[in-house]
């Protein structure tokens, strides 16, 4: 199985008016062809920054760590020049963003915006590109695509706009698709539809996919493997079944337990469990294990930085509780 993406020690710092902030501190993971990886965590854990850094969509005051490598199909793309990078974006790697309402340019028709990708990367003429765009719209389940292609974004609903985004992203059959909270801004029923669509398409095109979300339900629907992130680091990673059936890190356990469950009989109803405390701001990450202040199982060793401890089944965890365990 070809390794599509290999991210090694991803470190991102921002230089601001108030000093240097490092929201992402040594994240490593990889992805194979056709695999779907989920990155889950709360707001502020660094998952969106991770997604953006692959295609270098971060602002000018962002800095990459010295030893960071981002290998796409074996080649390090973190040092690519502008023009080379532009060839990859939209063609070999594409992204779907969180806010469909604002992610499309209000002054151009959706047909024009989709065909832009074709004109740019496949050198098609306007007509040919438009025809292909109509096809893509049909593929993503938009009714009357020929009519829709001449409409403007404000004439479409949120769910439809997100489908357009997906169409744009998959237009050139990229090898890697990165979806940043693709359904968070949508209504629940629409969410289900869009997720179903994404599942269908990624199987059809065998696109390797990274899904960023804070919703464990989405992870369960879509992913083969999961990374759990907290405060700029990966705290647990593994197969989806391993993570859900056998969560190791206290944070992961906390997340899974805080999903409200509907129980019919009063006997089974439990109080909603909660992880006490707040997510730390990147300017003030705790020393040692970053989850320590909120962790119910913390002990003295936690004042030191825990390393990532890996098991044979590739189920890894960053926690002193598992030091020396045979897993």
């Amino acid at each position, binding site marked *: 199985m070809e390794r599509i993406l290999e991210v090694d020690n991803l470190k991102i710092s921002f230089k601001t008016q108030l000093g240097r902030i490092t929201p992402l501190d040594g994240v490593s993971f990889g992805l194979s062809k056709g695999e779907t990886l989920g990155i889950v965590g709360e707001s502020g854990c660094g998952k969106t920054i991770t997604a953006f850094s692959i295609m270098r969509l971060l602002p000018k005051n962002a*800095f990459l760590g010295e030893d960071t490598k981002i290998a796409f199909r074996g080649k390090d793309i973190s040092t690519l020049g502008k023009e080379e990078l532009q060839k990859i974006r939209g063609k070999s790697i594409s992204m779907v963003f969180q806010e469909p309402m604002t992610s499309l340019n209000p002054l151009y028709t959706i047909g024009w915006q989709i065909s832009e990708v074709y004109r740019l990367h496949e050198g098609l003429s306007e007509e040919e590109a438009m025809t292909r765009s109509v096809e893509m719209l049909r593929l993503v389940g938009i009714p009357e695509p020929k009519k829709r292609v001449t409409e403007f974004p404000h004439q479409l609903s949120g769910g439809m706009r997100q489908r357009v985004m997906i169409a744009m992203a998959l237009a050139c059959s990229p090898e890697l698709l990165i979806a940043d909270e693709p359904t968070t801004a949508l209504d629940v029923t629409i969410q289900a539809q869009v997720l179903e669509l994404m599942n269908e398409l990624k199987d059809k095109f065998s696109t390797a996919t990274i899904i960023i979300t804070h919703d464990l339900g989405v992870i369960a629907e879509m992913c083969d493997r999961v990374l759990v992130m907290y405060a700029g680091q990966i705290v647990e990673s593994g197969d989806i079944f391993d993570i859900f059936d056998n969560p190791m890190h206290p944070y992961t356990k906390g997340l899974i337990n805080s999903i409200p469950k509907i129980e019919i009989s009063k006997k089974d109803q439990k109080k909603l469990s909660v992880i006490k405390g707040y997510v730390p701001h990147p300017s003030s990450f705790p020393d040692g294990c970053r989850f320590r202040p909120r962790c119910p199982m913390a002990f003295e060793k936690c004042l030191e930085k825990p390393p990532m401890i890996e098991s044979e089944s590739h189920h890894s965890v960053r926690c002193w509780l598992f030091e020396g365990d045979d897993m």
Partner: protein
Amino acid sequence: MSKFFYRRKLDEIEDKARPVHINSYRQLVWAKFKSHKLAMFGAFVLVGVILFTVFGPLFVDVGYEDMDFSYLFSPPLTEGHPFGTDELGHDVLVRVMYGGRISLFVGLASAVITTLIGTVVGLLSGFYGGLVDRLLMRFVDVMLSIPMFPILITLTLVFGSGIMNIILVLTVFGWMGVSRLVRGLVLSIRETEYVMSARAMGVKNGRIILRHVLPNVIPIVIVSATLNMSYAILAESSLSYLGLGIQPPMPSWGNMLQRAMNYILGTTTGVNPWWLTVFPGFFIFITVLNVNFLGDGLRDALDPKFVSES
């Protein structure tokens, strides 16, 4: 503007910036303000100008009316007259100092009054809304779109000239800009959840305005005040220049320029007294410039969402 970043040794950045721990809102505001170089510079210069105009005359024993007949139209750096003299032997430096007092006073007074009126109007209009609010804002919008200066000179026709009248002229319509800004902000604050919950709990309107709305409006009010002050100083000097503002013999930077204009092509003796034009005008310029710097710095520092890249 491409969204690229450059690979750099982390140590390099380390030298230029330290990790930072901010603990309170006040610290944040002060830190942001300090890092705004122009604002710090502006504040510094302004204090200098104020000291110069307010305390300067104490160190000189020449009055602004005193005429030194041995030195008419002398250029700067003549003995005893660092800025030169005018056609009647008045010392330009001294006149600049006294003129500064007047111009600064008018500017400050107008700014304070217009800001106060504008804030109150904006608060009440925005909070209570209704027909009065809409009509009032219509009126304000219309008046604001008409260029202010022609209106100002017409007002001098009605009110006359002199310090108090000029302040009146500047404040009659000057409060409108502030009120619109404040009202806009009040509208959005009014719809926030904490105000709505305060109302739901039965807190009296007056208290809501004072405790919840007002503190959030203060930053924008402060910034408006600085803008108003710079406009007031410019307007007063323009009016005085045209002969409609502060009247001689009382000096103001504006009316000094009016007298200077008579000699712009040179005097009867062939001298070109450029210093009569340059000095007063320069003082107007740097005062307004630094008030603007200050205002810009305050705006950046007080804006809660704004932390710039460096």
